[in-house]
């Protein structure tokens, strides 16, 4: 049992120079605290953006994409000669319905899938809101408002009025707060809108919502699906999009491929739709780890220096220990125990400080520049980050202490003892 002896010596060394030990520890403390703060904040931002995005994108979005496959052309039939090559420059898509055929049956079919939580039809069209002499561009979504609310948690986003108001009025509209502000209207007011097809109608605002993303809040509004069908002059079964919410988001990618094959329409999963958000998340993650690693390396160099200094002060002691029969590994153990102890306590105080700083940041009001609506800085508290912090702290100091310890173990006692 040589361990307790070596550790006892390590402990005495640390305690006999408290100030130096604490300074070395603070280096690790700040490194880990910044790591915790940064990762909690960055992950908080990631989570916020992801949630905001997901609250606006369905897990699977089934729609009729504009056909851009021009490999078949009737020009060929016209020439009717297999030796001749038909070249058509700048083909344009043909006039075709952008709706989903047989939408009610597809929806019923999807509903039978045990993975599916909710299915909602949607009919989207561009619209121009008349505001005096000016026309403001917007998007209106014809929806089954109750299904839509189930899909996106719309009820929590309502600022004024109620979601159900749309059902009780036959010409109601639920409008984003940004758009309502631009049009200078509020609940109960009437707005006039025109479609690209030339039809127009007057609708009454029955509620307003705020998603948190300016781009959405400034352009989007909901109306009953039948209102849009009438506006576009289409029949009761005309639907352009089918949105699906799943019980488990992770299967979206596979299921989307299934649906695309099965129904012959384009099916995008949420990961594909939000690819830009995902990639910016990766960038933030990388940044966090790079900055944290840099800080820990700096702290590691501090410890490396302090250990080197300690060892030059302890040459005599090392020589005497060796003369008394302490082997090289004992010497390594004595000094390595010191640096890892510094690392361990540094990491513990670091995660504590990190937690306090993160908590503080989560209470700081977020400056409102209109792009996103956030009350406070988004910060998450994830136990795994704190465990990581401790592991990082201990392993950095282990590495930083290793070289000086090995150096100490190589000291030739004869040189020191002879004076």
């Amino acid at each position: 049992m040589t361990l307790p002896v070596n550790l006892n010596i390590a402990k005495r060394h640390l305690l006999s120079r408290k100030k130096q030990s604490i300074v070395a520890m603070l280096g690790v403390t700040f490194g880990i605290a910044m790591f915790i703060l940064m990762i909690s904040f960055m992950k908080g931002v990631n989570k916020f953006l992801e949630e905001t995005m997901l609250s606006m994108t369905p897990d699977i979005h089934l729609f009729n994409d504009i056909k851009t496959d021009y490999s078949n052309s009737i020009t060929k039939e016209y020439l009717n000669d297999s030796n001749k090559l038909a070249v058509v420059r700048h083909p344009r898509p043909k006039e075709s319905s952008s709706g989903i055929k047989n939408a009610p049956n597809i929806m019923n079919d999807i509903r039978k899938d045990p993975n599916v939580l909710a299915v909602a039809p949607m009919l989207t069209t561009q619209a121009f809101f008349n505001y005096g002499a000016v026309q403001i561009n917007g998007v209106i979504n014809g929806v089954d408002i109750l299904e839509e609310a189930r899909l996106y948690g719309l009820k929590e986003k309502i600022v004024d009025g109620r979601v159900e108001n749309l059902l009780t009025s036959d010409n109601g509209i639920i409008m984003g707060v940004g758009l309502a502000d631009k049009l200078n209207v509020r609940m109960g007011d009437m707005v006039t809108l025109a479609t690209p097809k030339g039809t127009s109608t007057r609708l009454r605002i029955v509620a307003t919502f705020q998603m948190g993303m300016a781009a959405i809040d400034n352009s989007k509004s909901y109306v009953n699906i039948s209102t849009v069908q009438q506006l576009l002059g289409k029949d009761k079964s005309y639907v352009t999009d089918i949105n699906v919410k799943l019980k488990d988001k992770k299967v979206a990618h596979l299921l989307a491929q299934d649906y695309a094959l099965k129904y012959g329409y384009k099916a995008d999963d949420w990961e594909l739709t939000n690819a830009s958000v995902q990639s910016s998340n990766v960038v933030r993650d990388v940044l966090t780890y790079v900055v944290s690693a840099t800080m820990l390396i700096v702290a590691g160099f501090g410890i490396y220096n302090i250990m080197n200094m300690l060892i030059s002060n302890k040459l005599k002691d090392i020589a005497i220990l060796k003369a008394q029969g302490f082997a090289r590994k004992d010497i390594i153990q004595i000094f390595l125990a010191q640096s890892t102890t510094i690392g361990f306590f540094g990491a513990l105080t670091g995660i504590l400080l990190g937690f306090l700083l993160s908590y503080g940041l989560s209470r700081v009001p977020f400056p409102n520049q209109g792009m996103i609506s956030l009350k406070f800085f988004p910060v998450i508290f994830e136990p795994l980050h704190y465990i990581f912090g401790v592991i990082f702290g201990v392993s950095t100091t282990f590495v930083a202490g290793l070289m000086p310890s090995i150096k100490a173990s190589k000291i030739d006692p004869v040189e020191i003892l002879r004076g």
Partner: protein
Amino acid sequence: MAEILKTYKVNKYFTEPEKFHVIKDIDMSIHTSEFVSIVGKSGCGKSTLLYLLSTLDTNYEGRIEINNTVVTGLSQNELAKFRNENIGFIFQFHFLLPEFTALENVMLPALKRGKFSKEEIEAMAMEKLGSVQMRDFAMKPSGKLSGGQQQRVAVARALINNPKIIMADEPTGNLDSVNTGLVFDIFKELAAKGNTIIAVTHDNDFAGKSDRIIEMKDGEIVR
């Protein structure tokens, strides 16, 4: 009498700053319970020889046998264990660990050896401190002791594992005559109890009172 330490044709060279033949063909043997002094002028190689015998310095030619074990060629870890169990050290500049009390300093080599429990070691250490009249200072931090007191604690520490051989490099070099006398008496007593003592010294009085004097000159034994 049984031989406890033997050397065969031991040679050592210093290569820095230039090649220098410091120990020349040393053949010697020391018997159990002998009290040997190695004397000689500065630079004659007597300390170098002691460090070779102590196994701390392994860079030599020839062969050294201690307590019927050939120590030449053992690994550093084996040598560390061997020193721990067989050799007690006393140096000119006491070399106690300043963070520890006198008692803890004495206990360290035994704790390292790990043969006995902590309580047993503490009792043995107290006994050794008693034999050098340092029992009353056991709980004092070693940095607070006087030079003579520290050297006596160092003697107690050298004895803790009951080594066969005690090696001392100028053990009285830094001490006044009272402490020198004390340390000498302790050595004498130890030799009488069957310990072997090899001391390098400048002090002719000290050497004169030991059992045998080995005098060195220019790396060779002359007497």
